[in-house]
């Protein structure tokens, strides 16, 4: 679905990351962990075509039009109603899909409201609906739940997981939260500016009780060490 080979991004002499190679299968969720400034967001932006590559290549099945992106901030346009934010740049023929998605996320009563009338969790749900209404085959998530409290965060994690699994959407999730990375990802990678330093497959990621399983805590412990740059065995 997504093939990144020897990619690098350079901001006028400052290397965000380089020599990055990754292959992602259709329907999988890859969580990307790493220290601040290791180039996680730059990687996502390069995949979305928002940042040019200095080296290497990125191939997406279906091209960039099959990508949906959700940013760290909701980026809802304050002058548009909820439904019009979801339909940003789309023809009215998408309206029914947009309404169905909002309903699925429990937002059926806020179609006509403006973003400032919503809570943080609701705003992020609208941003998610905006990314999903385009029926992306590849969903790029840039720490989309970072600003939410734990309860809202877990609720939205479940909603995203359920939706992408049901629709076979491939996900690349950038996050600072190791627990979130493990809970959401079928594969978790630790990124450094020089590429991938560690990679872990999570066979239990579809398990709904994963949050309370020992396996999660064990993977979390190992990954924490790797993010810190102190490798250890699982």
């Amino acid at each position, binding site marked *: 679905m997504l093939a990144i080979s020897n990619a690098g991004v350079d901001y006028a002499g400052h290397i965000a990351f380089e020599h990055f190679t990754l292959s992602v299968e259709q329907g999988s969720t890859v969580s990307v962990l790493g220290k601040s400034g290791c180039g996680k967001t730059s990687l996502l932006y390069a995949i979305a*075509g928002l940042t040019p590559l200095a080296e290497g290549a990125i191939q997406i099945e279906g091209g*960039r*039009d099959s990508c949906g992106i959700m940013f760290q*901030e909701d980026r809802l*346009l304050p002058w*548009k109603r909820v439904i019009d934010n979801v339909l*940003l740049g789309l023809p009215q023929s998408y309206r029914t899909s947009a309404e169905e998605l909002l309903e699925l996320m429990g937002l059926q009563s806020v179609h006509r409201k403006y973003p400032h009338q919503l809570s943080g969790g609701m705003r992020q749900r609208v941003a998610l609906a905006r990314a999903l209404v385009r029926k992306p085959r590849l969903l790029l998530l840039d720490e989309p739940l970072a600003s939410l409290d734990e309860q809202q965060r877990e609720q939205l994690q479940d909603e995203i997981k359920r939706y992408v699994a049901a629709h076979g959407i491939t996900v690349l999730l950038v996050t600072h939260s190791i627990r979130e990375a493990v809970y959401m990802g079928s594969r978790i990678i630790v990124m450094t500016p020089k590429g991938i330093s560690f990679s872990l497959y999570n066979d239990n990621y579809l398990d709904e009780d994963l949050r309370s399983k020992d396996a999660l805590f064990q993977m979390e412990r190992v990954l924490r060490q790797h993010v810190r740059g102190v490798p250890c065995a699982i």
Partner: protein
Amino acid sequence: MRYLKGSLFVLLFWYLSAYLVASPIIPFPHAVFDYLISFDTTGGLHVDLVYSLYRIVVGLGIALSIATPVGMLIGRSRALDSVISPALYLLYPLPKIAFLPVFMVLFGIGDLSKIVLIAVIVFFPAVVSIRDGVRGIPHQYLELARAYRLSPRQMIGDIIWPAVLPRIFSSVRITLGISLSVLFISESYAASHGLGYAIMNSWVMADYVAMYGGIVVLSMLGLSLYAITDSLEHLLVHHGKTA
């Protein structure tokens, strides 16, 4: 309510001034209002009001319909900005009222010279404000537009226009006062209609009650235009209430 309080304060000040000065040069407010509500004696103040309203609305309209696309263009294009902005800064500080005789020669002594003068005066602050508004659009929104592959038309309609709309209303509010002053001056010269003409004509005829009648109507015109601007902004701009 806020307009009522302000009006009461002005009225009180006016009464006090009329009482203290005790001269026909400052008539009592009730005399002026009596004059205004007695239709027969108002001469043609309502006609003058229509003329002034027409000139100011058309002048503002022309200025904004040119300043909006120009401001958007130079706000988005650094190359255009580097050519147009220096010219704007060169012409902006010039007292445009000094060009009234030139406009009168070029466009005649009728409506057109007055409309052009108002349009030229409003254009400069409006274009600078709209340009700055476009430059100030958060980069996150522009990134969002790129990520969601908005067409240039959608970019203008969905991002740029709504983002600069509050700037346009601010420009109108700022330039309304200047426009009214300019309107008054331009109607004082070689005019046969308009509130400026009516006020100056009454002054020459030493009809101070009629003169103050004209001033009251001019200030009511300004107040109404501000109120209409506020209402339109309330109706069209939603992001002022952003959390």
